[in-house]
Every structure is written in structure tokens, then in C-alpha cells.
């Protein structure tokens, strides 16, 4: 696939960038959806690790796992998040769904003050716990995504879906984000296969179709 003039941000996932013209559009937001255990968190962590390797300041907001668990989980791939936290290059931020009422304002503050270039939010599905009704969730999500765009960061957000054809939890994220990547664990006969589909990516000539990926020692790798 030919490269274009749009500035791209590598994902750090071997094989993925070539499916999207060399990477995510700088300043874009991309939603990664999939069922439980399909690799959403790993993909986000890999994206953040890639940024750290390139000297970028990164922010990883976790709404499900505690930072120490994230640090321990990704260490198995050889990604030493803790050392970057210590250096101040990585902000690992946990939001307790039962205590936080506004994640947008502090997020924007962090991005500005720490000159963050990459953001991962895992997972937006938990936002449902913050707000009392679907309308409020959608409103806040919209606000969040707009804030990320205004801040000019390249962001990955995850959403857990049930696996019956849904591509977002609240039915709005997929329309607001610039990109949509769907991860699946597909059972074929006696074996399970992990698949990745680029459903949309603005300003990008995407490689349509279903691609397979593997979990390896260094994270996720797109095979085909």
C-alpha cells in the first residue's frame, strides 16, 4: 500500500501499520473493540510502549485494571512501564468508576501540562458506571473524544462488546472516532483464531478484510 503525505504514528504492532498506510493519523482517535480476552488492552499497551521507545510522553488511563496490575501484565512482554513512570514519561492513571464524575477536565490538564502525544483509554465501556443514563454516557463520550481531538493527541480507546455483531457499547463511539479496529477470537472447528479487522480509518486507504494476528512474546503481531 503506498504511503501518503499524512503524518502517521506507528502502532508498534508488527504488521498492523502496513494495513493502514503506515500508521494511525497523527491527532486521530481510534476505537478498538472486541470481546473479553481478544487483546484490546495489549494492543493499547503496545501502542504506548512504541511511543515511549520513540521518546514521546504517553498517558494510559485505565478504568478497569489498577496501574500496578497493568505494569505487571505488560512486563511479561518485556515492556518496562515502571521505569518510564519513574522518568515521568508515562502517566498511568486509574479512574475509579464509583468516585469520578468528570474525566475530561483532568485529562485535558494532564495532556497540556505533560505535553502528552499518545493516549490510551481502557476501557470506555466502564464509563457506563459513571453516569446514570445512556444519554449522559454518550454526551460524556462525545465530550471526551472532542477533547482528545482538540488536544491533538493520537489516541486509542477500547470498548468491550458482546460479540454478536456489535461494534461499540453505546452505539456512538464508532461514529465519533476516526478509526475503528475490531478484534475477535474466532473459533474454527477445534481451533481458535484471533482476527483483526480495520472497519474504518479516516484519511487512510485501509486493507479491507479479515486479518489474523498472534499473541507472542513481544505482544501482538499481525500475521496476514
Amino acid at each position: 500500500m503506498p504511503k501518503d503525505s499524512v503524518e502517521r504514528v506507528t502502532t508498534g504492532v508488527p504488521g498492523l501499520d502496513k494495513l493502514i498506510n503506515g500508521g494511525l493519523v497523527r491527532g486521530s482517535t481510534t476505537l478498538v473493540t472486541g470481546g473479553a480476552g481478544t487483546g484490546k488492552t495489549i494492543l493499547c499497551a503496545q501502542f504506548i510502549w512504541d511511543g515511549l521507545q520513540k521518546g514521546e510522553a504517553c498517558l494510559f488511563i485505565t478504568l478497569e485494571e489498577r496501574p500496578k496490575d497493568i505494569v505487571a501484565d505488560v512486563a511479561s512482554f518485556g515492556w518496562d512501564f515502571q521505569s518510564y513512570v519513574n522518568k515521568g514519561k508515562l502517566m498511568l492513571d486509574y479512574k475509579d468508576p464509583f468516585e469520578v464524575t468528570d474525566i475530561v477536565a483532568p485529562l485535558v490538564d494532564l495532556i497540556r501540562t505533560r505535553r502528552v502525544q499518545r493516549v490510551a483509554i481502557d476501557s470506555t465501556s466502564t464509563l457506563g458506571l459513571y453516569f446514570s443514563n445512556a444519554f449522559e454516557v454518550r454526551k460524556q463520550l462525545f465530550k471526551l473524544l472532542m477533547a482528545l481531538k482538540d488536544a491533538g493527541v493520537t489516541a486509542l480507546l477500547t470498548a468491550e462488546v458482546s460479540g454478536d455483531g456489535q461494534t461499540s457499547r453505546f452505539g456512538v463511539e464508532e461514529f465519533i472516532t476516526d478509526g475503528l479496529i475490531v478484534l475477535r477470537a474466532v473459533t474454527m472447528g477445534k481451533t481458535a483464531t484471533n482476527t483483526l479487522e480495520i472497519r474504518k480509518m479516516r484519511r487512510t486507504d485501509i486493507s479491507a478484510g479479515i486479518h489474523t494476528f498472534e499473541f507472542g512474546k513481544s505482544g501482538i503481531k499481525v500475521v496476514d
Partner: protein
Amino acid sequence: MVIRDRLVKWYIQNIWMPKIDIFDKPGFIITKFTEKGRTVYLREIFFPELLFVELENAVVKEYQNKGAKALYSAGKKVGYLFSEMSAFLQLESATEKKFLEFVDLFIKYIESIWASKMQHEVDIKSKSIKFYLTDYIVCSKNGLGHILTSGGAAGIWAYLINDISVEGVQTQCQGRGKKYCELICAPKQMLINSKLTPFDMQKLEIVKDKQRYIEFNQIRNTEFAKKSFQDLVNSGLFKYAGGQMTYNGERHFYCDTSLIYFLELELKSLPNSSNLLFNTAFDWAKRMTEKLSDKNTTFLTDYLSALGFGDVVAIKKGQKYNVLNNYFPWMEQCENINFSIYRGIVSGMLSGLLGKNILLKKIQISTQTGHLSMVLSE
């Protein structure tokens, strides 16, 4: 009479069919209505006419009269099963007047989906019906006449008059130069008395466990298929009017799922029939996708799912391709066939799209999750 016929046809195409046909669910083509308190639920597909022509030609060329008989038998089984599943009005349960009215309406329905013009004459006394058909599916294109479709008409008439000895004989053929086709369905002895030579096929089948059939074929949300038949009609890719669909100028006919099952089952006893069906379907599908300007395997998902074959996706694993198919139209005979035609279609399409031959010769099927899923692999 002409005005009345046109009105009836208009009513069928514009009021009745849209009411009973479900076209807006990716992976599914369903006919659903209630008849005498019973829910009629049919899993249907749209089948490419040219592929059907090539299958009939190949079978007759290879197996001659044995092949023709197998095609006819498959058709009669499909027609009978379809009628029984549809709970059509039978002669014995209605007055003659009511029955004839139903036949009139039914023929207009058949005309809508399978022909450009269709007329008929019923003789209740001799339990016979004569059809005059213009541009009836397949015949005008194969030069062989109706084979499977003669059986189909015989199966339907056998059900309507509740006499399984009914057979169908084509007496005039548009595909061999006549202005229209003529087909007679009547009890076998009557046909013989009229110096006609019908096939003899009286082993008919019905769906015994209808509740199970409905459960296995119920509409579900598809994971990969996102475009329904209706979506592709709305987008202009499929041209659909009054029951007839064309894609890239090729007519696709609406038919019961049992067609793909009975076709293979009836040919099973003939040597090498599985390969013949596979290869014929493969050649047709490969030619079809080679012509496409945008060659992406997502075509497989969009096209086959829209035609009613379930949730279809091609996945490359290593250097080889697998095709995963969930919610494939289920029939209890699924354990007895190896889906040669379908495997041929999928293999041919992938080959045309990828520019190299992909032969999906292996198949694993599963019904454990309450629907029919299959994995086709090289």
C-alpha cells in the same frame, strides 16, 4: 382477464411478497407468515441462474439419463417439501372453486419469481395441470429443457392434489426453439396413457421436526456480514423487482434451501458426482470474481451473506485460507452431504479474487451451538 391478471400480479409483487419476505437481515433470506394458525417459516436463498444451468449441463453430459433423473428427483423433492412447509391449500381440504382460486394465485406468485409469463390450465377430473411458460428459469439458457424444475413443478402439484404419483413432463421447449415452454404435471399413468414418458420418483420427504427447523434457522446477529439483501438492493448493486433479482446482469432465483441439499443427495450414488458439482461451481464462481474490478475477499462476505448463506468470512491462516460460515441454512440432512456445490462456489470465488487456485476440499460442520456452522479449509 388480462387486467385482472395484472392486478393480481401487482398485488403479489407489491403487497403480499414484501409482507412475508424478510430481506433486511444479513445472512438470512426468510419467508414467514401464518397460515391456519401455523407459523410458516422458510429459510430461502437466491441462487445464480447461470450456475444452475452449468450444473444441469454438466450432470446431464456426464451421467446422461441417470443424471437427468437425479436432477428431476431433486426437483420433485424440493417442490414437495416446499409446498408442505408452506402449508399450501390442498384439493382435499377445499372446495374446487377455492382450490382453483388458490392455484391461480400461486401460479401468479411463481410467475413473479421464476418467469416472465406463465399461464395454466387445470383439469381437476384428471388431476392434471398444464403450464405455458415464457422465460422460465434455466430452460431458455441450457437447451436441455426443464429437468430439475419439471420435478419441482411435479412435487408442488403432487402435494396440492395429494397424489405422489404425479410426475412432470415437458412437451415443448423454449430453449430448443419454441416460443414458450409447455409442461404437464399429472399422475404418472395418465401421462403414460398420453404417450408421454415421465420419470418415476415417489420417495418424497418433508421436514419432520418443524420446530427444530425454525430454531436452527432463526435469524441471528451476524458477526462479519453487515450487508443484507435489502442493503445491496438499496445500494443498487442488486437489481430487484417483483421477486426477480439480477446481479451484474445475471438472474438469481429465489428458491428453497433444500435445493442445495437434495441436488447433492440425489446425485450421491453417481460416481464422482461430488467432484463434478465442486468443479462446475468452482469454474462458474472463479469466472465471476475474476471479472470484478475490486478484488477483495470481503466480496465473499457481502455477496454470499446477502444471498442468504449465513455469516461468511474468509480468513487467511499462515499461507492457507479458511472460510468460516455460521448460520448456514440448516436441514437435518446436513450430516449426509459434503456441501460440494457450496465449497465449489466459495473456492472459485476466492480463487478469482486472489488470482490463484484455492481449493477448499475439507469441511468440518457443527450443530452443537444450535445452528449450522462450518469451516471450509484447503
